[in-house]
Every structure is written in structure tokens, then in C-alpha cells.
């Protein structure tokens, strides 16, 4: 089986072909979404979930901590954004900052509890904490609005210096989310290709060795957990804006499980871009299969089960294997005799 570090990650410049393709698709999306029969709101949703999934993969794929309660931090971000708009002041940057801060704080506290757990115990503890947040969101009626959640969250104006732009319609909100996403992706790319990212992968491969080399494994795990929660909080703030509400459903185990499915099916375990593919696949399944039959989740679930059985490396792993095969056959045709043992 291949893993993340078998695919050489080119360090340094984030301007790779994959990044170029990603940015190009993202920035042209408003022009082709409607002609191919989709709608702009879907673009916003996909962009937010990509942001969430990429941040989550820092934890899931890179350091190998399998959190099953990550929806909680998205939810915390969403509620923080909403509460800030309703209780303090209507401000875009303020709301997003508070969303990130709140999720970071929640992640830091939970991270302190779970970072020394290993394997399945880590997964179980994250589920328990996720359920605590979810339960709290439902039961703290006076703050969170209970099961209905916070309704009527505004989409505040974008203020940059002297400029003041209205982003309350879906197209301009899409542009805003897309720009944030590009910035976040470049930041994440820098993180995983920096020495810090290498340490994360070292910890996933062999925790004891990483410890003996002198890294403070607990601290790095905790930092990664917190960082990943911060990205979830940002995604949550944007999500509250997109939905114009915040509700407990996103914190449920079901949603936290779905994000794991998306990351895995796309190949988050083997590639930086895996989560992106996974999110796309999920939303395509939801909107296209969902348009044909109401039981689309049945087909998505079946696809997922088959994927885990035959190709647990996901779509990205599949692409990697196909490319390797392609390169091998090309090599064979170019120089068949020069390297016989290779064939």
C-alpha cells in the first residue's frame, strides 16, 4: 500500500501544476457553474467543505490522528460567528476572527485531553468530545437556540481599507470564499512542506522514533489538533454566512463521519489534494445521484464500502498508481534493453 510520503511532495514553491489547476477551476467556476446546470450556492458549499477537509487532513492524513468529532469545531466556528453578529456587532473580519479564535480555543482544550491517546482510543475520545459539543449546542437553548439553531445571521459587508463591498448575494460571496480558500490552501501547502510537515509525517510513521530523534511528540500532536480546529473554525464562520444560520446538525457524529468519508474516498491518506477530490465526489454524488434517486446516500455508501475494500488509498491513490503504470510502459517503449530488471 502506498502512503503519503511515497508520493514525493515537492517542497518549496506552492506553484505546482495541481495548484494551478485548482486555482484555475476555482476562479472560473462562477462562469461555468450555471451553464452546466449547477448553481452558485453549490460552489460556495464545496469551497467551504474543501477548506474544512484540507484542514482536517492535517490531522487525519498527515499526522495520522483519526478524529471522528471534527464537525464540532466547524459548529463552534459557525456559532461563534453568528453570536458575534447578533450580540456584539455586525462585522465580517471580526466575526471570522472570533470564529477562528473560538474553534482554536475549543481545539486547544480538547487537544490537551486527547493528544496522548493513541489509535482507536483517540478516535473514541474525539467522538465523545464531539458529542459533548453537539449535545451542548442542542441543550443550551438560551445561547444557541436549541435544535433550530441561530437564525437570520447576516452576511456582513466586506471592508478592505476604504472600500466597502456588499457580498450578500451568492456570486460575490463565492468570490470572497474562493479567495479565502486559495489563501488557506497556500498556507496549508506551506505548512505540510515545511520541516513541520515532515515531522508530522514522521510521527505518523513511527511515533517512538520521532520521540527519540528529540521531537516533543505530544506538543506537535496538540499543535496540529489546534491548528486543524482553527481551519475548521474558519470554515464554520464562512458556513454560518453561507447558510445565514448556525445549527447543531453540523456537529453531529453523522457529519463528522461524512468528512472522514470524504477525505478517505478522495485519498487524503496519500495526497495533499485527496480531500479536494473527496469533497467534489461527495457533492457530485449528492447533487447528481441525488437528482435521480432519493437514496443517493445508499449508493454513496456502497461506493465507499467498495473503495475501502479494494482501494483504501482513494481516488488520489488510484491516479498515482495509474500514472506510475503509464510512466513504466512509456519507459519500456523508449529503452527496452537498457534496464531489463526494471520490467
Amino acid at each position, binding site marked *: 500500500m502506498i502512503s503519503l510520503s511515497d508520493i514525493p511532495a515537492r517542497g518549496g514553491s506552492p506553484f505546482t501544476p495541481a495548484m494551478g489547476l485548482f486555482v484555475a477551476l476555482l476562479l472560473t467556476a462562477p462562469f461555468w457553474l450555471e451553464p452546466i446546470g449547477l448553481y452558485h450556492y453549490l460552489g460556495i458549499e464545496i469551497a467551504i467543505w474543501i477548506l474544512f477537509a484540507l484542514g482536517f487532513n492535517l490531522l487525519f492524513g498527515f499526522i495520522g490522528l483519526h478524529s471522528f468529532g471534527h464537525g464540532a469545531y466547524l459548529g463552534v466556528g459557525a456559532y461563534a460567528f453568528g453570536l458575534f453578529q447578533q450580540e456584539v456587532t455586525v462585522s465580517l473580519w471580526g466575526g471570522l476572527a472570533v470564529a477562528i479564535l473560538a474553534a482554536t480555543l475549543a481545539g486547544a482544550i480538547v487537544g490537551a485531553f486527547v493528544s496522548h491517546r493513541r489509535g482507536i482510543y483517540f478516535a473514541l475520545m474525539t467522538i465523545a468530545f464531539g458529542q459533548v459539543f453537539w449535545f451542548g449546542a442542542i441543550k443550551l437553548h438560551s445561547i444557541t437556540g436549541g435544535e433550530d439553531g441561530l437564525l437570520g445571521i447576516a452576511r456582513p459587508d466586506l471592508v478592505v481599507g476604504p472600500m466597502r463591498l456588499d457580498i450578500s448575494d451568492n456570486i460575490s460571496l463565492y468570490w470572497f470564499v474562493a479567495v479565502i480558500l486559495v489563501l488557506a490552501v497556500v498556507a496549508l501547502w506551506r505548512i505540510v512542506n515545511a520541516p513541520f510537515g515532515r515531522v508530522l509525517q514522521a510521527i505518523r510513521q513511527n511515533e517512538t522514533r520521532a520521540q527519540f530523534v528529540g521531537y516533543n511528540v505530544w506538543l506537535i500532536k496538540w499543535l496540529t489538533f489546534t491548528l486543524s480546529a482553527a481551519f475548521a473554525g474558519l470554515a464554520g464562520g464562512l458556513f454560518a454566512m453561507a447558510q445565514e444560520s448556525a445549527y447543531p446538525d453540523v456537529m453531529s457524529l453523522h457529519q463528522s463521519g461524512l468528512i472522514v*468519508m470524504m477525505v478517505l474516498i478522495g485519498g487524503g491518506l496519500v495526497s495533499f489534494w485527496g480531500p479536494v477530490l473527496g469533497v467534489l465526489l461527495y457533492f457530485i454524488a449528492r447533487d447528481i445521484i441525488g437528482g435521480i434517486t432519493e437514496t443517493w446516500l*445508499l449508493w454513496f455508501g456502497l461506493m*465507499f464500502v467498495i473503495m475501502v475494500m479494494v482501494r483504501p488509498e482513494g481516488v488520489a491513490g488510484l491516479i498515482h498508481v495509474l500514472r506510475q503504470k503509464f510512466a513504466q510502459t512509456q519507459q519500456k517503449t523508449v529503452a527496452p534493453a537498457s534496464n531489463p530488471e526494471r520490467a
Partner: protein
Amino acid sequence: MMELVPHIINGLTLGLLFALIALGFTLIVGVMEVINLAHGSLFALGAYFALATLGGGWFGSTEFGVWWLSLPIGMRYVFALVVGPLLAAGAGMIIELCLRPTYGKAPLYGLLLTFGAALVVEELIRLIWGTGEQSLTVPQAINGAFLMGGLIFSKYKFFAAGFALLAIGGVWFFLERTPYGAIIKAGSHDSEMVRALGYDLSKLRLLVFGFGASLAGLAGIILTPIWGLRPHVGLDVVIPAFLIIVIGGVGSFWGAVLAAVLVGLSVGITGAYAPAWSMMSMYLLLIAIVGVRSRGLLGRKSALEN
């Protein structure tokens, strides 16, 4: 203190019911080191199969169907108690067959596959039985309420708790006092040696998974009259089972039973003071216990930690 008594009794019965749910789960975790997230779906599936058996849904309005419905409900109920778990076992065995490629890989894959299977089963239930709430009728003899010490108790809850006790005893007897139990335990301890002794391990795994699934189905039939039956009931059920296994210690039979009773008591007693928060108490109990004892109350080292 006296006013707490009914809550403690409620908590104890609830704990026994939790133990019944967790029984199949702990068996599969302990023997196969697979976290079976589809456990709750098998629970629901067992209950739905029993529902279809009890209501004669299988046979429609054929002559046999009419004859079947004319039978006394007690007889049909007992029959459903046998058929439901058996069919759930069949579904569990299919999941086990799908699980085979994940053996020897990280435990994460087993967990993910069963999560996918849970989704599939839930959607299938929606497709076949619809999304609405259903209820399972039980015979008159175990329905209704009775008075004890000036307090009203539900007869069915006591029947269910007694049944749970019986099931716990039965599984314990099977694992500890029969040669089959010995092989299963040996298989979880040292699978290579068991294979070297000539036992077919893959058949053993299939049977254990089927047995665990049938226990889930049985729990479903027993608990449905109390908790109601919805397609997503699986998720509501797998979480307590999960927590109980972790609190009790993965793979420990008595740990699971003890944890289930503790969880039941904490939910029951919290219910006396803050009913809205009663279900929250089990998560806090988990965080408190696992925060101190990382392997749970009676846990031992397991491959799932890697």
C-alpha cells in the same frame, strides 16, 4: 435519599439494557479487533425484521399470511425473537465477508468500512420500511404497569432487564464454559496458533461476527418497544455501546457489563436532577474515567491502540 430509589432502579434497568446492546459489540471488538460501527444498524435491522415477522409483512395477504395473523400474538412474538436475530446474523455475515480485505491493515479501515455499511443498511431500511416511526407490539402479559411500594413501574422494562440478565449470563456461559467459547477466546489471543491447531479461522470469524450481529438484532427487538423504531435509531444506539466498551476496557466482558451499569446509573441519577442533561452524563463519565485510566476500567493492551 428515598426519592432517589426509583431513579436508581430506573438507572439499573437502563444499565442492563445498555449491557445487552454492548454485548455483541464487545464480542466482536474483543475477538476480531474490529470496531463495528454497523452494530446499531444491525440492531435496527433485527427490530425491523421482527416487525415484519410479527405483522406478517413477509407473506402479504396470502392464505398463509391470514392464518399467520390469526395465531396468538405471544406465539408470533416468540417466533419473531428467533427470526429477527437470525436474519440480522445473516446481514452481519455479509458485512464480515466485506471486511476480509481489511484484516491485517490499520484498524481504521475496519471502522470506516463498517461506517459505510451502517449508512447502506440505514438507507436500505428507509427504502423498504419507510422513514416514519414504527412500533413493535408486545404480548399483553409483559405490557402495562404495576405498583411496587407506592410507585408505578413499567412491566416491560423489567421484562427487558430480566432478558438482558439472561443474555449476559448466556453469553458468559457460552464464552467461558463451552469448547466453542474456548476456541473463540483462543482465536483472539493467538490466532496463528489456533490456525495451526487445525481450526478454520475465517469460518470462526464469520460465525463470531454473525453471533455478535444476532445479539445486536436481539437487543433491537427487546429495546424497540421502549425507545421506538426509526431508520436512524442505529446511530442513537451505537454511541452508548461505544462509550460502554471504552469505559469498560476494550475486550473485557465484565468491564463492559460493569460500565453499562455505571452508565445506566449515571444517566438515571442525572435524570433525577437535570432531565435534559441526562444523556450528556455518559460522555462526561467517559472523559472522566478514560482521562484517569486510559484503557478503561478493566481493559488490557490491544492491537487497536496502534
